[in-house]
């Protein structure tokens, strides 16, 4: 357990509204990642961060932005939610002490109506 929490755990929102998901870690890991999981697609990387204020895009970054102003928090924002962004979102950290293994948060189920 790498002390990763996500909030909210469930959210229903309307198309066009902004949404922010939060990932919080307690063990000072440098890298943090946001993924979305959809049936038939496995996990797809949205954005990742390799330090405070250092972020990069993943394979499905369109429509998403991120921010990391503190080591422990990585925020994912949907500026104007669309139905195609209905998904389960997972946050993860990279643990260099354990063979660079990833540990995942519990997930956030987002429904955009």
């Amino acid at each position, binding site marked *: 357990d790498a002390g990763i929490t996500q909030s909210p755990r469930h959210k229903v929102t309307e198309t066009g509204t902004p949404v922010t998901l939060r990932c919080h870690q307690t063990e000072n890991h440098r890298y943090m990642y946001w993924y979305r999981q959809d049936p038939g697609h*496995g996990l797809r990387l949205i954005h990742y961060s*390799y330090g405070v204020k250092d972020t990069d895009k993943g394979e499905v970054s369109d429509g998403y932005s991120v921010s990391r102003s503190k080591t422990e928090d990585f925020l994912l924002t949907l500026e104007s939610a669309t139905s195609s962004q209905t998904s389960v979102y997972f946050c993860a950290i990279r643990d260099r002490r354990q063979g660079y293994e990833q540990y995942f948060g519990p997930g956030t189920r987002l429904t955009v109506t």
Partner: protein
Amino acid sequence: ELKVEQNPLFLSMQEGKNYTIYCNYSTTSDRLYWYRQDPGKSLESLFVLLSNGAVKQEGRLMASLDTKARLSTLHITAAVHDLSATYFCAVDIMVVASGTYKYIFGTGTRLKVLA
């Protein structure tokens, strides 16, 4: 394009039988990971394979890595119902332009073990 392919995508097997899940990847990587996911849950780490020829075993599951063939296998011995889950492999790659690291996941193998 970087790809991680798993096969089969779905696997239904009888208890007591053996089977192997395959994970092929298209890029150079010496680090490969296997995860398990139960329905409605997050991903749980199973194995970390860090070099060519690495083999790890835990209970009825054994994972191996051949970096030359860009292939990892997850072998199931004498399957039991509790192994029913979705299994993912993932590779750790360096983004050359930035010197940072990210992971590419396979699409998963959904395993159902029938009693």
